């Protein structure tokens, strides 16, 4: 019986899980191997006797060095970081206040506003990039970070409002009521009682917003034109792929380095993130 159960656990749990994780992670592994492979090996025939497609015996850091010294990659990193941080802060600020109002206050049209914020979240950038391109041009913001900082909130605000609203609803009302009996104003109770409790929710909304703006592609592709102004996702694809010449090693190195901040943010905050996603004060 016990043996059978263990066998079942392997078939229904461990094996599918392992397969899935391998499938998920393989592209990253492939990126890594390609990034540290010397050029000679990258272009060697598949049929060569010495070919080792899935690993390399002479790892090299040349591609990383080239990337950092010969391209504007460090500049892209900084651009992306700056843009992602500022737009995340703006959206979190707006989302926090709006989310609180929608979750806690009774006011006319609250339901309508909540629904319309939800609907704006679903409006895809594909619908907006053409008019925004014209607006950006008429305000002469094209090719500056502000073009992105002002447009990213289009998807960040609805998203973070919605997430934080859900989170605020999980915090018991009594906490706030106690504070108000003790003489705090509603605004004071919000700042001193509710926001500190909501930190996991705020962090996970922040992580989400940061990731979304770090990864954003369409607006960055449309609004930025000169190489030194670009963000990592656009820069890597558009500047390192020139015609039919591909700097594969550098591309992969760029792909790896370009997402280190996001990967770090995730691994540090995974606990917060999971609680933020599954609700706060449970039970």
């Amino acid at each position, binding site marked *: 019986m016990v043996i059978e159960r263990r066998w079942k656990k392997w078939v229904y749990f461990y094996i599918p899980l392992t397969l*899935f994780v391998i499938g*998920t992670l393989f592209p990253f592994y492939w990126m890594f191997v390609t990034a540290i492979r010397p050029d000679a090996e990258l*272009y060697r025939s598949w049929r060569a006797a010495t070919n080792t497609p899935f690993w390399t015996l002479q790892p090299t850091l040349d591609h990383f060095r080239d990337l950092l010294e010969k391209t504007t990659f460090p500049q892209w990193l900084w651009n992306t970081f700056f843009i992602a941080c500022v737009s995340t802060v703006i959206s979190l600020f707006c989302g926090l206040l709006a989310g609180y109002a929608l979750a806690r206050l*009774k006011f006319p049209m609250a339901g309508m506003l*909540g629904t319309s914020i939800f609907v704006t979240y679903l409006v895809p950038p594909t619908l907006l990039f053409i*008019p925004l391109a014209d607006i950006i041009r008429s305000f002469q913001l094209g090719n500056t970070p502000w073009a992105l900082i002002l447009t990213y909130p289009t998807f960040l605000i609805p998203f973070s409002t919605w997430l934080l609203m859900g989170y605020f609803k999980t915090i018991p009302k009594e906490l706030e009521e106690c504070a108000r009996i003790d003489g705090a104003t509603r605004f004071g109770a919000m700042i001193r009682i509710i926001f500190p409790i909501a930190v996991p929710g705020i962090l996970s909304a922040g992580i989400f917003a940061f990731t979304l703006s770090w990864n954003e592609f369409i607006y960055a592709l*449309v609004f930025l034109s000169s190489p030194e102004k670009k963000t990592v*996702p656009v820069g890597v694809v558009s500047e390192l792929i020139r015609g039919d010449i591909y700097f*594969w090693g550098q591309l992969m190195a760029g792909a790896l380095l370009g997402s280190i901040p996001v990967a770090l943010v995730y691994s540090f905050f995974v606990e917060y993130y*999971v609680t933020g996603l599954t609700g706060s004060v449970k039970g």
Partner: protein
Amino acid sequence: MKRGGADTRLAYGLMAPALVLIIAVMAYPVAWEVWTSFTNFSVRSEGRAFVGLANYRAMLGDPLFWWALAVTIVYFLVTTTAKLALGLGMALLLARPSRLRALVFLAVFLPWAYPGGVTVVAWYWMLNPPLITSYSLVAGTLKHAVDSTLGPGAWAFVSVALFNVWRGGSFTAVFLLAGLNAIPTELFDYAALETRSAWQRLRHVTVPLLRPFLALAVFLSFTGAFADLANVWMLTGGRIVFPVIGTYAYWLGIRQGQFGEAAAWSLSLVPLLALALLVLFRWFDPPAERPA
């Protein structure tokens, strides 16, 4: 009475920053787009004149539009089915407590968290290597086989769909996992007593309980596929091998500067989105009830 007024004022004060930004960067652009789609605004000609429905008529008469629409619909159906199946399976596996859970969680989340703009490069390298790489022969043979049975561009379609599923599938998994966690465990305990097989349990208990989450996942996948521009653009290196509506609108508007026509193309997504939204709202209660 006085209290209510203060609450209302506070509420609007708190909503103000979000509303101002949303109106400035969303409502105004959408209005601009609707208006532009009725004009012949283009960087090629001076001024803009009202042309009525001419842009829409031109679009509907264009066989390319119907082709792009068909491709978009197939793309949506294929990727959504795969993502839901994969996501649900993964969510069920992840819902079980296990020592490796945090690690697996991270692994599952990585494809979504990692910038699509750069992982797409890895996929491009895996699936469409150019001639002078070590294994282009292998990938080339594969591409040739797919293209010759399903028609030109099929391999590119397969690559984009695979990438979409890889990226979105894990997001769906995490999303559905959040849904599973929100369901009281007692319900599953009863279900275990009442049903005979795990399959029955899945069909009659888990899936119905997850319905709101599944609906939202389908909708997000819907907007993702219909509005997809980035994935297609990146994975085919800007060469439009098979068009979806988004890529063509980009091509018309940004590359050729024909804003009027491009606006009409983008707006052609609106009826579809509205329809999907309607179905979604029918299918589950308003979003306010959804635990985040």
